[in-house]
């Protein structure tokens, strides 16, 4: 935007009278634009507001027809039922798995990214190709292969099985590689002259400089691991003690005649809260991540 504006300002543009829209039309267009955008923004939040409101309703009230934004008799009963139904355990599992996935990605992706950006050694292009190729495997195609390998390795129904396969990803490696390439080589050369080894340079000089890229990767990894469903379903779908929040929520619906909507809405809200907090705190990094993926794709 900034570049576009400066360029516009630099060019003396003559405005021909008559091609400009009359003021009233211009104003009308603006009003309509704002109205449409505000309506759409509202549509983005309505489901969450509705779910939040329902989570404070009693079961009979939530099952009645009608639109009630504010519960007639607000109650936290649903949240109490939620905790007695095993929410705590599932929340722990989600945090635990997301933490290790995030840690693994920070370390392994930055190491791999650095090797690809800076180090020269035989077979480098081949290994680069292997990493690129992994990006072309659609996720759901892996349902069966993952199940097979994890059962052969005895890793089904285990934290290892949930965590280790997610501890690296090609996108994160490329993100780090891109970042390391932008760091001036002179910095490393200076450290080399001082007698630092490659490992020393990487951990003491390069990684501290990479904090912004690491932060972007950390929040994207956390969000990905937290929201993941299908991988956990494959690894531990029949073993409730290891259910993450997503898996636990999906089972919560059950098959009973009357579905406990307030509990499900309460669970959905609490599952959304951690990612929402991370998002609102680090919005800019999310948006950079998405923009990067778009530009990388071209």
């Amino acid at each position, binding site marked *: 935007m900034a570049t576009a504006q400066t360029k516009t300002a630099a060019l003396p543009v003559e405005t*021909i009278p008559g091609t400009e829209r009359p003021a009233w039309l211009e104003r009308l267009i603006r009003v309509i634009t704002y109205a449409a955008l505000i309506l759409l923004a509202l549509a983005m939040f309505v489901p969450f507001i509705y779910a939040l409101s329902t989570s404070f309703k009693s079961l009979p009230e939530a099952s009645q*027809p009608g639109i009630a934004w504010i519960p007639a008799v607000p109650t936290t009963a649903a949240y109490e039922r939620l905790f007695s139904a095993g929410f705590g355990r599932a929340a722990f599992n989600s945090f635990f798995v997301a933490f290790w996935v995030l840690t693994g990605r920070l370390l392994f992706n930055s190491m791999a990214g650095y090797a690809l950006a800076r180090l020269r050694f035989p077979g480098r292009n081949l290994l680069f190709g*292997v990493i690129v190729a992994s990006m072309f495997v659609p996720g759901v*195609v892996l349902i069966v292969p993952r199940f097979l390998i994890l059962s052969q390795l005895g890793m089904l129904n285990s934290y290892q099985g949930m965590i280790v396969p997610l501890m690296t990803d090609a996108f994160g490696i490329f993100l780090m590689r891109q970042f390391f390439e932008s760091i001036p080589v002179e910095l490393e050369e200076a450290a080399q002259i001082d007698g630092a080894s490659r490992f020393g340079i990487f951990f003491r000089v390069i990684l501290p400089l990479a904090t912004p890229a690491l932060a972007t990767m950390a929040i994207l990894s956390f969000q990905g691991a937290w929201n993941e469903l299908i991988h956990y379903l494959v690894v531990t779908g029949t073993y409730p003690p290891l259910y993450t929040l997503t898996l636990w929520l999906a089972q919560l619906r059950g098959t009973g005649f009357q579905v406990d909507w307030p509990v499900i*809405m309460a669970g959905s*809200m609490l599952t959304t809260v951690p990612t929402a907090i991370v998002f609102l705190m680090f919005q800019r990094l999310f948006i950079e991540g*998405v*923009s990067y993926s778009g530009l990388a794709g071209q």
Partner: protein
Amino acid sequence: MLAALRTRRAEDMVAGYIFLTPSVLILAVFIFIPILLALYVSFHTWSPASQVGLANAPFVGLENYARQISTSSIERTNFYRAVKNNLYYVLGVVPTQTFLALLLAVIVNQKFLKGRTFFRTAFYFPSITSSAAISLIFLYMYQSNGLINQVLDRVIPGYTPFNWIADPQLGATGLIHLVLRQFGLTIRTAGDWATTQALGLTLWDWISGPSVAMTAIMLLNIWTTLGTLMLIYLAALQDVPGYVYEAAAIDGASNSDMFWKITVPLLRPTTLFVVTVGIIGTWQIFDQVYVMSAGGPQNTTLTLAFLIWTRMRDFSTGLAAALAFILFGIIMLFTLIQRRITAER
């Protein structure tokens, strides 16, 4: 000096391998080797429930593929049902979300707009939430007592609320069938062609369009993905110089001229990316189906990814493995077709 350089080189080599080992090892063990294993299983009859080891599984050649693609069987009917549902899903979601994202990006990019950051945040927010949580929230909204039905009940005269996801009649009816019904056309009155069987389904069944339940899932998905795609377009719009539009305005171009003749062509590489990502993603739709409908009502939300899952759950591992490779093939085929079409322009 030369010796120092040599040790430096050797050190770089060692460091390079050590640095890449964890990532490459994980990718090899959990992506590439498993794919080979699955390829092997797709040519065999094997089930984790049986006590037979993988190495001793009986070889069946291409049977797991043929039973789903060509040989008349219940597996074939379910496969083509999933292909049909999934195809309507892809054709419905990809163009809609791409166009809406572009339109939204252009509007949010308007110079006069204040509060751009707010709108960007608001539209992107659904993308960061868990698919399981958001699917459950929408599932509740689609109930006959839920928000969407209750609003429509007040807004549209004569509307009868029904469960969009689970209603066995209306929920399972295709949109095209619904329209044809308005003209008095049903499978009984449409003529003989309608009952002709093709690949396990009647021709009438093939032209159903997405069922109401599937459409509900499509709307949910467009709603969640829109913000992400809009951000990608917004990033690309930053590179379009403003003077292009100024020049066009001098030439008397209207707003819609500028959109169709400047913005759309300039953003073609981005559109190509967004459409490719869309095709790859929509063919893989799983979470929403798993959480909301489990393939119902009457199998009208059965998708290929969900079919893979049910086959695996039912211990038909060979069929599931074969289906995974068929889906991989379909995704590649569609991506190639799309590239070909866009390259010709």
